[in-house]
């Protein structure tokens, strides 16, 4: 640390010129401050640069996750592989990724006709990274915020109207209370009774599988909230006895024969087996 001295052996300086012992650290500190200030003044807009760095990290992380978990079917650049039956993901948006991965539908375990709901093995951060990567490829709906789908605070009339909207738009496939139903060629409209409000919202906006997209122009956020509110409340309503599978007249007829006729025949056998006793 001799950079402030001249030569190897300096002559003995005069006392007035002799530097104080603290001068060197002070000078070092000042110069660092100067350079730092200069850097801060000359580099471009600080906030965007800082967030851009993390976003790019997220996208990069997502790209890596995508390459490991998704690319075998959807292609390395999410362009889709026709021979795998996997669609291009360039314009599906973050909401689609959030829905498909969070409900465990993607990645698929088997190449079935339809991706079934299963346990999700990704963390929230990983899903966010994947969503960020796919969102970076093109347009598409983003992940909704809670004020878009949370049905809290709806009036009874709003919820009842949600029921009417549900019966009109959704019940043809998902059944009158969202228990699900059959579609052609081995496909099904899944039960909505496990779905969270966020998932229902995302499904409406992204149209997973056979489901059509219900865009905000057709079903505004308020109506989606009503539908979600109705679904939650109708499934929380107590039933009038055992629901017998809740499948409508088919299961009712089955139990009428088993419990009704079956039980009464047992009684009939018992009655006929008793003779007349005086």
């Amino acid at each position, binding site marked *: 640390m001799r950079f402030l001295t001249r030569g190897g052996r300096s002559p003995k300086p005069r006392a007035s010129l002799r530097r104080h012992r603290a001068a060197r650290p002070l000078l070092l500190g000042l110069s660092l401050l100067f350079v730092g200030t200069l850097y801060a003044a000359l580099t471009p807009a600080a906030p965007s640069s800082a967030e851009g760095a993390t976003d790019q990290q997220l996208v990069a992380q997502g790209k890596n996750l995508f390459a490991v978990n998704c690319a075998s079917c959807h292609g390395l650049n999410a362009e889709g592989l026709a021979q795998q039956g996997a669609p291009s993901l360039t314009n599906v948006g973050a909401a689609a990724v959030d829905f498909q991965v969070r409900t465990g539908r993607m990645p698929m375990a088997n190449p079935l006709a339809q991706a079934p709901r299963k346990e999700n093995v990704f963390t929230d951060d990983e899903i966010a990274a994947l969503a960020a990567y796919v969102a970076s490829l093109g347009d598409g709906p983003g992940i909704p915020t809670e004020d878009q789908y949370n049905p809290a605070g709806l009036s009874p009339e709003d919820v009842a109207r949600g*029921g*009417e909207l549900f019966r009109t738009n959704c019940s043809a496939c998902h059944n*009158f209370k969202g228990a699900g139903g059959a579609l052609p060629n081995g496909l099904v409209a899944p039960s909505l009774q496990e779905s969270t409000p966020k998932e229902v919202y995302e499904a409406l906006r992204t149209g997973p599988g056979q489901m059509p997209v219900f865009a905000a122009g057709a079903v505004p956020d308020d109506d989606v909230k009503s539908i979600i509110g109705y679904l939650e409340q109708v499934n929380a309503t107590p039933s009038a006895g055992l629901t017998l599978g809740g499948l*409508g007249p088919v299961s009712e007829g089955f139990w009428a024969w088993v419990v009704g006729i079956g039980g009464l025949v047992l009684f*009939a056998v018992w009655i006929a087996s008793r003779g007349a006793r005086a």
Partner: protein
Amino acid sequence: MAKPAELNPDSPALEVRTPPKDAGPGKLAGPATWVDDRIGLAKLAGNIRKVFPDHWSFLLGEIALYSFVILLLTGVFLTIWFKPSMAEVEYAGTYELMHGIPMSEAFASTLSISFDIRGGLLVRQIHHWAAMLFVAAMTAHMLRVFFTGAFRKPRELNWIIGIGLFSMGLVEGFAGYSLPDDLLSGTGLRFVDGLVRSIPLIGTWAEFFIFGGEFPGELVIPRLYMVHILLIPGLLLGLISAHMALLVYHKHTHWPGPGRTNRNIQGYPFFPIYVAKAGGFFFIVFGVTILMGALMQINPVWLYGPYNPSQVTAGSQPDWYMGFVEGAIRIIPNWEWHILGTTWSWNIFLPGVGLMGLLFTGLALYPFIEAWITGDTSEHHLLDRPRNAPVRTAIGVAGMTAYAMFWLSGGNDIIATQFHVSLNAVTYFMRVAVFVAPVIAFIVTKRICISLQRQDAERVLHGSESGVIVRSPDGGFSEAHVPITPGEAYSLTRHPQPKALVPNGKKVGRLRRRLSAWYADGQLPKPTAAEIAGAAHHGAIEADHGTPAVDAGHDAPALEGSDAGDAR
């Protein structure tokens, strides 16, 4: 002035007669005598000791009767609050999830019965379960009558009345199912609207006649209400009365057995035994129906919502008894003609109207067809065991199988989702199964019947298995057989066996001859008296050799080729 006539002191007219004091049947019988003097109760009371035989399967019809009584009672309760009107109202009742939804008054009053009337939901559910049981019990009763041959002469007319009751029951159930005007029943009504419109030439006209214009209109619920609470219950009551009057007139059939003939009836008298048994069974049926209504949810219309023609929910099915029509329509290929701007919807007409017509016509005609095939003109008061009429039993099971295939097709979407199979696969399978499965069922059932006949012959000739294993001196093992009682042997051998018609003198057509040969074919001739005597002798010889009353071997004379008529 005329002179008074001479009085004859011996004339009985002059006797002072007072009613004998001790002739009356006592103080308590006063009201009975009073009634008897006016409506002839004593004559009716002759029937009070009417004898009925005891068997569980004879109680199936009673379940139907008692369900009908329950339906009348609960139905009266429901009519007090139900409003059969299609006028539109905005719901403002207790059920929050329907607040402000426009609906018909019929649906609103159904919601009000369910949520606002004390016990209303329970009674609604009892009524609906009783309706399901009513039709189911009629079906079960009809199958019992079919498989035991109880429809034969002289009961053909009562069978036809029964078919009338069965078909009326379907219409009654469907009308009642439609009344709440909920989404599911409205969809069912739309389905029937389609059936009506598919009738060639008159379809559209008939639709306008029924609905008073285009579907759904504003008339159909009030009209169905009239049908449901007045027209069909009246017809049902009349037919039930006729059905039971004929039952009393013909007397009940009974199972063959010792002392039971075509001319007598063994069992217990109506009073007091069957009053207790049948009365008790009524309360059991009522109790089971109430329990079902209390514990098992049925037709939750508040979940379905009001009917709206723009909505159809997944899993739309009718109640079980209309399921076979639904199924037939679900699986039929899309056959339609388009001729000169007109549409001929065979895809709806054949499975809908055609299949129902086929079922009821076939059922109604069956007694006459069978009598024609067998040439049997005698009266039958003894029942057939199903195994002893193998072809009839096989026809019945084949019919049930065909019905079941159509029935399952009606729930093809439920099958697809519950068992994780493709809806298309279920549909294609059913298209084949409705034709193939009945044939398989026919063959299998006939084989089983003949095997059971073989088992009967085995019991008659060799006795029943004793469970005792005997070791012979030379080391062989065999099971000792115990002879069956003469009573059982009689029961097992008394039945007449169908025989192929042979043209002796009378001309028998080719088709009829073939059918009767087919009807009689394959059955095991029952053991003849000679064979039974021979087998008994065989057993007796063995008894002399130290194995008492036992037929250890299976070396009895062959059953084939013996004459069926001897043991009668």
